C-alpha cells in the first residue's frame, strides 16, 4: 500500500500532499517536515530508498523518492511495495505530467516545472487519482492514464476554459520568458529544467 505521496520543493515547501492513510492535520505537517529533513540531507549519489522513518508506521515503512531539479517526489509505502517498481512509477507519473501540462510529444518531465504543479494543484490530484486509487496502484499504462486525463480536460474545455486559461497562460509565459529570466536573475536557477531523466 502507498501511504502517502508528498511533493515538496528544495526548501521543503509542500507542493502536493496526498495521504492515503489517516493522520491528524498536525501529524501530517510533522511527517512532511520530517520527510523533507530526511530526504534533503541526502546527496544525489546515494540510493533512492530510506527506511525506518519514525512517523509513518515505523520499521515496516519506507520512503522512496526522486529528486528532479527543484522538486522532491516522495512516496511513503509499506513493505508490500516493490522499491524499484515505485521508483519507476514516480517517473511514469512525471511523464504523464509532462504530457498533460506541456502538451509535448516527447513524453518528458523536462519541461514541467514547479510552476505547473503550483498552478494546477487540482489537476495534479486528478492525474494522481488515475494512477493511484486509495493507496493502490490502479493503472500503469501511460496511454490509458493520459487518455483518462484528456477525457476530463475536454470536458473542462467545452465548459469555457476556466482552467484551460491559466494552463495556456503558464505555458505561454514559460515559452516566452523563461529563457531570458535566468540570465537576469540567477544562473543557478537555470536548472528548473531537468537535464536527464534517468539517474541510473
Amino acid at each position, binding site marked *: 500500500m502507498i501511504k502517502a505521496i508528498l511533493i515538496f520543493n528544495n526548501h521543503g515547501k509542500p507542493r502536493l500532499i496526498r495521504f492515503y492513510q489517516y493522520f491528524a492535520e498536525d501529524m501530517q505537517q510533522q511527517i512532511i517536515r520530517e520527510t523533507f529533513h530526511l530526504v534533503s540531507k541526502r546527496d544525489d549519489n546515494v540510493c533512492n530508498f530510506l527506511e525506518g522513518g519514525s512517523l509513518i508506521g515505523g520499521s515496516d515503512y519506507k520512503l522512496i523518492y526522486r529528486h528532479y531539479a527543484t522538486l522532491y517526489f516522495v512516496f511513503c509505502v509499506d513493505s508490500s511495495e516493490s522499491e524499484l517498481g515505485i521508483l519507476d*512509477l514516480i517517473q511514469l507519473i512525471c511523464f504523464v505530467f509532462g504530457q498533460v501540462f506541456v502538451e509535448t510529444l516527447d513524453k518528458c518531465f523536462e519541461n514541467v516545472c514547479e510552476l505547473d504543479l503550483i498552478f494546477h*494543484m487540482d489537476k495534479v490530484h486528478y492525474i494522481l487519482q488515475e494512477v493511484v486509487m*486509495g493507496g*493502490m496502484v490502479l493503472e*500503469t*499504462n501511460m496511454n490509458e492514464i493520459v487518455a483518462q486525463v484528456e477525457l476530463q480536460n475536454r*470536458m473542462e474545455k467545452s465548459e469555457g476554459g476556466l482552467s484551460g486559461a491559466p494552463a495556456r497562460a503558464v505555458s505561454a*509565459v514559460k515559452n516566452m520568458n523563461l529563457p531570458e529570466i535566468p540570465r537576469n536573475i540567477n544562473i543557478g536557477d537555470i536548472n528548473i529544467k531537468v537535464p536527464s531523466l534517468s539517474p541510473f
Partner: protein
Amino acid sequence: MSDVVEKTLTALPGLFESQTGAAKITNRLRQLIKSITELTSKHEEENLIKRELSAIKEQVSSPNTTMKQMREIMVRAMYCEMLGYDASFTYIHAIKLAQQGGVLEKRVGYLAVSLFLNEGHELLLLLVNTVLKDLQSTNLIEVCMALTVVAQVFPKDMIPAVLPLVEDKLSHPKEIIRRKAVLALYKFYLIAPNQVQHIHAKFCKALSDKDPGVMASSLHIYLQLIRESPDSYKDLTGSFVTILKQVLGGKLPVDFNYHSVPAPWLQIQLLRILSLLGKEDQSTSELMYEVLDESLRRAEMNHNITYAILYECVKAVYTIHPKAELLEKAARCIGNFVLSPKINLKYLGLKALTYVVQHDAKLALQHQMTIIECLDHSDFTIKRETLELLFRITNAQNVTVIVEKMLDFLCYVPIKTLTFAPDNSWFIQTMNDVFSIGGDLLQQDDPNNFLRLLAEGKPEEDDQLRLYAVESYLTVLKGHTSHLPQCFLQVMSWVLGEYAHLQESVDRREVIRLLTQLLDQRSVSSETRVWILSALTKIPEGQTDLILDLAESLSSSQDTVLRQQAQELRHLSQDSQLREWVLVENSCAVDSSLSFLDGFVSEALAAGAAPYKPPHQRQEELSLNLEPYSFSLPVSLSSCSITDRQSPTLLSVSSGLSGNSAELSTLILEGVKRVWGKDGYLPQKEATAPPVDEPSAAVQPASQQEAAERIEPRPEPSTQNQDKQQLASSLFVGLGVGSSVSLVRKLFYDGFTASLRGNVMDCLEARSTSVCHYALLMDDPHTNVSLTGTVSYQTQPGHTNTLPFSGTLSTADFIRPLVVTTEEYGKLWLSLSHDVKQNLKLLTDAGDPLRTTLNALKDALQLHVVDIIGSEGIVACRLLSGAPCLLHCRVNGAALAMWLRSPHPALPDFILYHCQRALAHH
C-alpha cells in the same frame, strides 16, 4: 526557484487581463500563490493565510457566490490545508459541491472531500446519497469519481450501502469502471472482509476479464487473499503461470510496454503471487519452474524496471520449493545486484541477501568483502541494510564482532541478537553502550524487552545478571549523568529499585542518594522522575529521614504527578504496615479482570447506569442504520454480566481464558444473581434456589479425596440438562433480549452443586472419582477461544499435585437452539438492533433447496428452524445463555439471502462465518 516563480508571476497579469470573467476568478488563487511564494517568514505566512481564510469564509457564506466560484474557493481551501492550516469550515461546502454541482463541480467537491475528511468524519454521512446517485449515473466520469471517493474514504459501516452498486459495476461495459470497481472492492475487503466474502466468484471473473487492466487490478485482491490462505487458491496456479507466460511472450498490447518491457508492474505482482503459492509446496512449485526460468532469462535488459522484476523473481526462486538449477541462476543475479555500481541495485542486492541467508548462509560468504565495504558506505540506508544482514547471520562465534560493528555505526542492536551473549558482564556492558549511545532513538520496545529479560529469569540463575546490572549502574550513576538519555535513566532506576537489595555490600543510603541526585538535574524529564520516584518507593525502609527530606522538597513541585507520588512516598515510609501490605516483595499479582471494581459496577448498574461497552463496540452501535425508520425500535439493554468472586478454596480450579483478539476476558464466567429482568424484579426463581454463593459445602470432597481427582471442564452443560435449557430458553424468551438469567442456575436442583469463582459446577461424587461440570459462557463472541486451566488436588495431606489442561473452543460450541414461536420471533426481531445481511450458498442437490440448506445448518450448528413459509425460512439460535441471534433466510435465485439480527453487535458476523463454513463443508 522562488525568484523565477515570482518574476514569472509578475509577467502573468498581462496575459490574464485578456481573459474575461473566468480569469477574474482565478485572480484570487493566483494572488494567493503569488503572495505565498513571496513570503520570507513563517509569521508572514500565518498572517496571509489567516486573511485568506477569512476571505474564503466570507465568500462561502455569501449567497452570491456561484458554483464556479465555489470551485476556485475549494482549490484555495485545499491550498491552505496543504500548508497545514485549518479550513474545516469549508468541508461542508465541499460536500455541497459534490452534491449539487455539475460534473466539474463534483470533481472538485469529491477531491476536496477525499483530501479533507478521514474515514471517521461524521460529515461523510451526508455524502452517501450523492455517491449512490453518482454510482448509478450514466456519465462515466461521475461513476469514476464516485468509485474513487468510495475507495478513498468510506468507512466500514457505510460499505453495505454502496456494496451492491459497486458489485454491479464489475460487469460494466467500460474497462475503466470495472477496474475501479475491482479496486474499490479490494479496499472493502481490506477494511471489512466479512462483507465481500460472497463475491469471490466475481473476483474470479475479473481475473479472467478480457481487459488486461481489469485483470491486473484483480491481482491486488488475489495477492491479499493468497497471502491470507495460500492453500485455498492452489488451483489458480496454472492460470497465473499462463498469464505470466503470455505477458512475457508479448501477448499484451504494446500500450502496456514500459521501456519496452511488457507490463512490468503486472509481472511483479504475478511473481509475488507465485512465490506465495509455491512456498513449501513441491508440486505447485514444479508448475512454475519453467516460467521463472524464462523470467530470469528475459530480464537481462539493462533498465531499472527489469531489475525490479529480477529482484522479485529471485525472491520467488528462493521462496518456493528449491530447484538447484534456478537457485544457481538466482544466486548469480544476487551477485550482480550486490556488485553493481548502481547504488539502488546494491541496496536491493543486500536486501535479497538478507532474505536469502535464512535459507542459505553460504551465499553471504561469497560476498563477504562487498558486505564489509558496504558497512563503510557513506549511505545510511545501505549501512542499515548491511547491519540487518549481519543481524541475520549472527551466531555464537561472531556475535561480539558484529555487535561491535553495529554499535560503531548506528547503535542499532536488536535485543534478540544479544541472546547469543557469551557472558553476563559483556551483555550488561553492551546494553549500557546501547542505551547510552542509542538512548532515546531506540524503539520503545527495546528497553522494555531488556527489563523483561531481567525480570523473567529465575531468581537463582539470573540473580547474578541482576547483581551485575546493579553494580554497573551504580558505577554509571557515580559518574557524569547529565548526558545520559532518558530511557537509560529509566532502565537504571527500575533495576535499582527492583534489585538493589540483592547487592548486600551496597549502602541503601548510597542508592537513595544517587537516585535523589538524578531528581535534582534539570535535564531529567518528568516521565523519568516518575520512574525514579517509583524506584525510591521500592527500596526497603530504614532511611526514613532521607525519604522524608525528599518528599518534603518535592511537595512543592509544579508537577502534580510528582507531588502525588511524593505524598505517597511519605505515607509509605511512615507507615510500615501499609508499606508491607502495598509492596509485597516479589509479588506481581495483577488483577486484570478489575474484580475490585465489581461492587462499584454492580452498584452503578443497580442505580441505572448503562453497562460498559468497549470503545469499538460503541463505535459499531453508532453505525449507520440503513433500514427504514419503522424498524428501529429502541435498542434493548444488551446483556451484562458481573462475575462474583469467591475466595479460592481448597479445591482450586483456576482457568485462564484468552480470546484470539486483544480484548480482555473473552469468556466471562457468569454466576451473578440477577434480580432485575426486563419486566422487573424476578424474585420467584431465585427465592427457592439454594444459596448459590456458598462454596464451602460443595468443596468438601476435595479434602476427602484419596486418589486422583478428575475434573472435566465442560464447554456445555451435560446432556441431561439440555432439555432443561431448551425449556429455559422458551421460558425466558419472553423476558426480552437482555435477560441473561443464568440457565445453569437451574441445575442446582440436580444434587451436588457448588459455585466456584462464579462458576456453576456440579460435582458428582463416586468413590474415588469426582466429576465436576463447569458451565462456560461466552459473553463476547470470538471465532476461537483457547481455554487453559489447572487442577490442584491432594493425594495425601500436604502434597498438592497440579495438572494443567487446555482446549480450544469455537463460537459454534456455544450456539444453542432458541425455541420460539413465529409470533415471538417476530416480536424479538423488531427489538434487535444489530444486523448483517449476506448471500450464502444454497444447497441445490435435493428437491427443496431451502429446507435442505436449513437442515444442514441445523445439523451443523444446533440452530432451531422456527418456520418455513414458501421461499422464506426463519431460524433462531442463541449464544449459550447469552444473546440470541435470529436468522431470516430467503431463496434469492441460486443463493440464500440471509439476514441476521442480534442484540450483540459481533454475534451475527460469527454465526454467519460458521454458517458459511458449514455450507462449504457440506
